[in-house]
């Protein structure tokens, strides 16, 4: 029996006795002294504390509190609410815990005194329950109704209003009888603006320029200048990257590095060019499905690929694909929809009107993709590729121009092509025990997934029907799930086949196996012999090579067939044919064992060292003298089309192949070959690629991928807005368009709320990930709606939103607070002052770099191994010998945004400052204070570098007198000049240090350079004793709380 009903049953008589009749019970918290609104004040309390047992789904003690009639009628124990008399209302006694045996809610947190006060005031004021909310249909929840633009409220002090934001803020302050704070001083304002918009403090020059600008629009101009700064994109990208759970490694045991920085840079760039938010989301969900999708739009789908990946030995790849799918749904829910849809992975939502079926209908939109890894190019490389293409095109055009009869010649060549032998595809099953997973494909090929061993043999068995086998064919095929589309599993999609061997026997004589001697091998391509690349080092020190296909049957493990034709041409299908000395022929048919030995990987299967086949297919033939087809598969396909039906592009492709076979054109062919050699290497990016066929999506029992139940079609949850086109297909693009539909009740609200949160510490809704029934009512509901509508009306312009906020009087207030005011509003929800917040972890570091002048402001590029305690990345502190080779030179002091994010070994200086790890979507960081933060700031090598650099800079550029220099250093850190007493204290420290140095008590060179025997001399004009004394001062300044606080 449920504990609650047990309580009710027992407690009834007691309760009647216990009901006090006195007018005001001293044990009850007092009613709050304001007008109570049911929907705004009371219903959220009921929803959070009561509905799970007394709501639509469950009615403990036959009592239901989510519908007006039921609530007043009561359940087994009678009427709980007596309008006008809170002290007599049983409900109040339950929640106040007055009765020993009957406390509500029985589990979880008790209501606070304030909440009880609200309920009391509501009852005392007559328990007004508007009919509109009488049904308490969860679909009527405020956040599920599309926002409309509310009228501006009237306020006590219209002069204070700079823009509509202020009207809403002041109206609420008026209600509470509070006044806004005065405007912050100009330096504080500028520093705040810089930290908010770019994440970097202003330079002294910027502060001086701002102070000198006496024009009326000096502030507005500063805003515009900062919104144009490229650092704006870096700063705001970081917030989105939290939500996008960005990280540079896979997570789990192996935690291999991944290339996703193109996505990170796409986000930075999207903010900088003010890509409208609706398009920002559309491209991240379905950029690849947009018409003529550009590379950057495909890169944007990396958003969905930021999920973790497990390639530990023995894993079922499907299990972790499903985990990644759940993670994508979670990210969508948190980052875009603001609904905790993840709950519905296992069951119907407990509070929000979403069913498990609806979850999987939404899931179905995302369930039709390959987990692709695309080759991508930087703008320069793209230009280079365009040049190569153009040059090749020109050479080919000239060939055609100079050869008027090229069409006839090509037709003649086509007619002369020998017929291809008939190949029987052998359906094979895995016999090996190396924990790579072999997944059979519809075309009879095998896709290798999961754990990737590096030196092993793939062992397959099949029983072809062909009788007199004269050749074996191995096709290496592309697959979107392979790196760079394959055909191999290496990090560049290639592979190496060390040995190919065949064993055969009669189906009925299994104990008499014959080794089939292979005497000839042909392939459409084999790279010229070359040493194995260094990333495949197996620590054997043996010379290992790749080269022509003969190497696969030479009986040597150190030589392999290699298929790497270089950038631009390496990721194409290949085929090889192996011919036996004697045809294989058994009376009852043959069983064939194929062994593909792959000994050309590196020593460590936990890194990108595999050189494995990715997708392959085995066939046999009985044709005489079979050889590998030299013609590429895509050309073959064109040849299969009748001449008149070929498109121009197809003819061009055909020509592109044919001319390479024309001996007379050697010079031109060589020139084209030269062009191919210029092809840039590029980088890679995880992205999505739509499958041709839809996967079946089924509701999973309790979210278990092994327990599919009913199949569902793609569709959207009913409590949110409908699809604009009800007949839209089940593609990601449909989902993307739906997410950013203007009718979406949550999309715009959720985003403006998060932006608000970044400025003010808490969102208008304090639970940015959840706008559902469990969420708190917004502190300023009308403001939230006004901002959401204004945001959409501006064309979803994020910069417009920033402009509005930072130009408001609300934002420009001082952050000073009196103890009384702090007590009144500790979380600053009413905004009678500006917030005062410790900046985020990355910015703590960025401030130190900027203040010391070390910061390299370069934008974008691969993630960097920033200086970090080296031992974290080698055993025992790290799993595996991960090479965190500290970046040297100019990249050493780049912004925290570019520090490599390794999931299993988070960057300690960030972790200590609550930087999330990218394990799952995070839309709200915690802010804690730990001694480890202090240790980081005091002693971490980068912060020490900063202290020394700030000292040097101060001595060099900070003026002549101590006062000038101390002021300079102080302003580098805090923007403002020091007060007289601060200057006094700092001077005392400085002078004291100088004395000790003069007395020889300190090694000044060592202190100023950080090295016993300095590699580099101090700059000209900087004396070691001065630099040393200022290093001590700089270390103090960089550690000051004010330095890392946004005021």
């Amino acid at each position, binding site marked *: 029996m449920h504990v609650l009903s047990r309580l009710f049953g027992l407690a009834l008589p007691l309760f009647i006795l216990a009901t006090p009749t006195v007018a005001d019970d001293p044990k009850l918290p007092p009613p709050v002294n304001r007008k109570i609104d049911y929907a705004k004040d009371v219903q959220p309390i009921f929803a959070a504390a009561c509905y799970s047992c007394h709501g639509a789904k469950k009615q403990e003690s036959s009592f239901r509190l989510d519908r007006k009639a039921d609530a007043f009628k009561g359940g087994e124990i009678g009427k709980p609410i007596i309008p006008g008399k809170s002290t007599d209302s049983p409900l109040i006694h339950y929640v106040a815990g007055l009765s020993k045996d009957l406390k509500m809610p029985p589990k979880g947190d008790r209501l606070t005194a304030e909440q009880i006060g609200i309920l009391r005031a509501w009852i005392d004021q007559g328990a007004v329950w508007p009919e509109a909310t009488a049904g308490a249909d969860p679909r009527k929840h405020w956040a599920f109704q599309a926002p409309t633009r509310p009228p501006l409220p009237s306020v006590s002090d219209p002069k204070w209003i700079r823009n509509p934001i202020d009207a809403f803020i002041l109206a609420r302050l008026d209600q509470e009888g509070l006044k806004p704070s005065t405007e912050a001083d100009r330096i504080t304002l500028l520093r705040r603006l810089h930290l908010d918009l770019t994440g970097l403090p202003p330079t002294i020059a910027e502060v001086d320029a701002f102070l000198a600008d006496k024009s009326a629009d000096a502030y507005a101009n500063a805003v515009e200048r900062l919104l144009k700064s490229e650092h704006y994109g870096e700063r705001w990208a970081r917030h989105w990257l939290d939500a996008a759970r960005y990280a540079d490694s896979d997570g789990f045991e192996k935690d291999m590095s991944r290339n996703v920085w193109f996505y990170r840079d796409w986000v930075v760039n999207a903010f900088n060019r003010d890509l409208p938010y609706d398009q920002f989301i559309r491209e991240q969900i379905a950029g690849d499905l947009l018409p003529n999708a550009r590379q950057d739009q495909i890169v944007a789908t990396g958003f969905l690929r930021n999920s973790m990946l497990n390639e530990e030995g023995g894993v079922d790849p499907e299990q972790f694909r499903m985990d990644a799918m759940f993670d994508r749904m979670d990210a969508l829910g948190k980052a875009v929809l603001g609904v905790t849809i993840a*709950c519905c992975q296992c069951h119907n939502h407990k509070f929000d009107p979403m069913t498990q079926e609806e979850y999987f209908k939404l899931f179905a939109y995302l369930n039709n993709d390959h987990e692709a890894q695309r080759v991508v190019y930087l703008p320069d490389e793209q230009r280079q590729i365009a040049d190569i293409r153009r040059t090749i095109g020109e050479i080919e055009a000239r060939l055609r121009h100079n050869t008027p009869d090229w069409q006839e010649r090509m037709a003649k060549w086509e007619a002369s092509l020998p017929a291809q032998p008939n190949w029987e595809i052998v359906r094979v099953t895995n016999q090996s*025990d190396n924990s790579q997973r072999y997944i059979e494909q519809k075309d009879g090929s095998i896709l290798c997934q999961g754990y990737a061993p590096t030196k092993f043999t793939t062992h397959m068995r099949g029983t072809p029907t062909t009788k007199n086998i004269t050749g074996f064919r191995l096709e290496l095929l592309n697959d979107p799930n392979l790196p760079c589309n394959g055909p191999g599993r290496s990090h560049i999609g290639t592979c190496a086949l060390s040995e190919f061997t065949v064993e055969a026997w009669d189906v009925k004589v299994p104990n008499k196996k014959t080794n089939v001697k292979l005497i000839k091998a042909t392939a459409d391509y084999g790279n010229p012999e070359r040493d194995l690349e260094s990333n495949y080092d197996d620590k054997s020190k043996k010379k290992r090579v790749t080269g022509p296909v003969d190497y696969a049957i030479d009986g040597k493990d150190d030589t392999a067939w290699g298929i790497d034709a270089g950038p631009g041409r390496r990721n194409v299908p290949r085929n090889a044919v192996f011919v036996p000395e004697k045809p294989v022929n058994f009376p009852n048919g043959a069983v064939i064992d194929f062994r593909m030995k792959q000994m050309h990987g590196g020593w460590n299967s936990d890194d990108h060292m595999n050189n494995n086949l990715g997708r392959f297919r085995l066939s046999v033939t009985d044709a005489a003298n079979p050889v590998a087809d030299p013609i590429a598969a895509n050309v073959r396909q064109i040849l299969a089309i009748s001449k008149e039906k070929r498109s121009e592009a197809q003819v061009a492709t055909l020509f592109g192949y044919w001319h390479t076979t024309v001996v007379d054109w050697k010079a031109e062919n060589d020139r084209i070959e030269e062009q191919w050699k210029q092809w840039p290497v590029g980088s890679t990016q995880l992205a999505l690629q739509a499958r041709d066929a839809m996967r079946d999506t089924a509701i999973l029992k309790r979210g278990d991928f092994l327990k599919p139940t009913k199949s569902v079609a793609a569709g959207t949850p009913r409590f949110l807005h409908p699809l604009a086109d009800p007949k839209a297909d089940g593609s990601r693009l449909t989902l993307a368009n739906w997410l950013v539909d203007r009718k979406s009740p949550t999309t715009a609200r959720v985003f403006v709320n998060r932006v608000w949160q970044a400025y003010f510490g808490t969102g208008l809704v304090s639970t940015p990930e959840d706008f559902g029934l469990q969420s708190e009512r917004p502190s300023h509901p009308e403001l939230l709606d006004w901002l959401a509508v204004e945001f959409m009306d501006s064309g979803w312009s994020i910069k417009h939103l920033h402009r509005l906020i930072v130009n408001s009087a609300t934002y420009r207030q001082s952050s000073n607070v009196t103890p009384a005011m702090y007590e009144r509003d500790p979380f600053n929800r009413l905004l009678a002052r500006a917030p005062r917040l*410790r900046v985020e972890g990355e910015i703590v570091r960025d401030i130190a770099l900027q203040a010391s002048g070390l910061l390299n402001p370069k934008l974008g590029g691969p993630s960097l191994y920033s200086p970090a305690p080296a031992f974290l990345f080698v055993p025992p502190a790290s799993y595996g010998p991960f090479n965190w080779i500290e970046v040297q030179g100019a990249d050493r002091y780049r912004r925290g945004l570019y520090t490599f994010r390794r999931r299993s070994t988070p960057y*300690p200086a960030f972790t200590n400052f609550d930087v999330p790890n990218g394990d799952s979507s995070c839309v709200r960081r915690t802010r804690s204070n730990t001694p*480890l933060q202090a240790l980081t700031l005091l002693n971490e090598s980068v912060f020490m570098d900063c202290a020394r650099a700030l000292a040097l800079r101060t001595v060099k550029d900070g003026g002549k007198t101590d006062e000038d220099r101390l002021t300079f250093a102080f302003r580098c850190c805090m923007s403002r000049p020091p007060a007289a007493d601060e200057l006094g204290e700092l001077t005392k420290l400085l002078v004291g240090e100088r004395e000790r140095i003069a007395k020889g008590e300190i090694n000044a060179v060592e202190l100023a350079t950080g090295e016993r025997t300095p590699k580099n001399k101090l700059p000209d004009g900087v004396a070691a004793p001065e630099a040393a004394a200022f290093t001590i001062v700089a270390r103090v300044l960089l550690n000051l709380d004010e330095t890392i606080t946004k005021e």
Partner: protein
Amino acid sequence: MRPSRREFVTQASALGSVALTWLHAQDARGNAPVSGLHHPAKAKRVVQIFCPGGVSHVDTFDYKPELAKLHNQPMTGKGKADTFFGQPGNLMKSPFAFKQHGKSGGWVSDLFPNLASRVDDLTFIHSMTAKSSNHTPAAFQMNSGFVLNGFPSVGSWVSYGLGSLNEDLPAFVVLPDPRGLPAGGAINWSSGFLPATHQGVAFRSTGDPIPDLATPATIPAAERKAGSELLAAMNREFAEATPGETSLAARVRSYEMAAKMQLDVPGMVNLENETAETKRLYGIDDKTTEGFGRNCLLTRRLLEKGVRFIQLWHGGAFGSPRINWDAHEDIVENHRKQAAVLDKPLTGLLTDLYRRGLMKDTLFVWTTEFGRTPFTQGVGKPGRDHHQHAFTVFLAGAGLKPGFAYGESDEIGYKVVENEVTIYDLHATMLHLLGIDHQQLTYYHNGTRRRLTDVHGEVVEGILA
């Protein structure tokens, strides 16, 4: 949503959590009765030993004579053999000799001659099941209840729930095996969505125990002091100029705690003043056991100093030959080698904790990722594969039935047949002993009040004294 009581304390004022820390510190020093968060506690500190790789239950503590009879025969009647890596082989009897020990008659194999002598102190659970037989997810589950990254570990929950017992050391300390980190690395002691204050702080066994603990060598002591004093003074002024902002006061405090750590931790990890007898007890005099022995001794010292939760690792993930219990190739070769490192120091730690009276309010928990298959991995081979359907853990200390075995796996150790204990249940029980109701220790995150035990977990009443 309204924060929970415990949340309110930390969120309303960052100082709150520090204040709570002090309260508890007072509590520890004043020898006041152990108070729990929700009910009286039996233990106020925890040491969790973790043996990654997967310790074979049927070769250590879960004696299966039936396996000897079925040796070399295929397993039948259990459905399709669930294996992780390879093709299932035949059943294999344990190559180790089992004997009953102590008054309680607990079975222990000859892998642990020392530990066997303390069997009357131990409470075994032979009916554990895990949700995954992959190393990383399984390790995550044992540590956080979830198979995925991103969730706070038990130590973080305990730190969050009970705060610290001391002023100069972290509440949650991790001692990784000197040979290497486990699968998943630092995620195993991550504070997940809990504030960073509650993360496990890993101590290195050589050099600087904590990153950035030491002031850089180029800064002399006097300079460190002068700088720190001015820093403290200026930060205090800043905090005082903004009355009410408790987070600033908390930052001031965090610098003070950092300074204390700088002073105390180096002495803490210096074991030289321990007696020769103690060092022998922990096997520090023997090359094989020295590394783990040092960590065991450090564990005792940290517990004495009031560290709330210590996670002590025996084994890492990466290495060839293996540096953990992942006996795929050869159970004898692997388990003999690992047990030789574990047995003496761990027994030494238990003995020392008992003789110093610490066990009266300490919870001792020995855990692994999962068990190993009763059949071999590959026919005719001497190794065992990962096995999630039955395995053993043991506990000791306050509030438990000593010399007791709970739950049962079937006659060959393949499936649990009596009193299944999930990892959620184990966690619920650990919290229970610490005076915490696992259903009430919550933290609001992602729209839900998150719990260590998710929506599961029952306290294992059967092992409680």
